[in-house]
């Protein structure tokens, strides 16, 4: 059994055009790493060059932001639905 990751539209072209990808994972971090492992060109848009999850990238596990749970260590169970949602941030120099 696996979890389903919903890929946001702008990232689908880096994930073989797919809207959903199923991965085997025990935690949110595992799921994201499995996704990036399957589609390496996604990596730079999810992680910094140092391999840290970008601060604006959020993962909702069944409608709850993983940052409000245990972050990347948040446990996931077979059948869970994960959504990658950005926090939109920026500003003038």
């Amino acid at each position: 059994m696996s979890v389903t990751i919903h890929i946001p539209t702008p990232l689908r072209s880096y994930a073989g055009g797919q809207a959903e990808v199923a991965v085997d994972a025990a935690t949110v971090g595992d799921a994201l790493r499995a996704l990036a492992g399957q589609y390496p060109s996604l990596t730079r848009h999810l992680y910094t060059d140092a391999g840290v999850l970008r601060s604006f990238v959020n993962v909702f596990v069944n409608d709850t932001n993983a940052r409000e749970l245990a972050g990347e260590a948040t446990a996931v169970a077979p059948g869970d639905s994960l959504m990658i949602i950005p926090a939109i941030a920026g500003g003038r120099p």
Partner: protein
Amino acid sequence: MTRIALAADQLASLTRHARLAYPEEGCGILLGRATAEAAAAVVEELVLADNERADSRHNRYVIAPQTVLAAHRKAREGGLDVVGYFHSHPDCPAVPSDFDREHAWPGLSYVIVSVCAGDVAEVRSWRLADDRERFHEETLETLR
């Protein structure tokens, strides 16, 4: 070159939101439809968002993920998608900063409104390159 199109009244609404936020940064979400290759997007609806930063609101903005998630759901219910975002640069050109670049994804339009001394000076739109090294300006078309 990619392209984003929005109606004249949407552009007016967007720039008004940016002007009212001055001297702080204003922001929002663009819902619409993209072409299959995503080279062009047409905005169908604006979400005028609150700048949810508690500090540095004159040069930083954030739209919380919960707000973005709600916009995604609203878009999907209307058969639309999130095609981009907008924010303002108070007293600064409508050119993305490094901070903007670090917080962007390719495939989305980033519309920036320059508000100088309280008036809108320029509106430009940008897309992040695949390699994340730079933004490319895109054509911003106003539909009548």
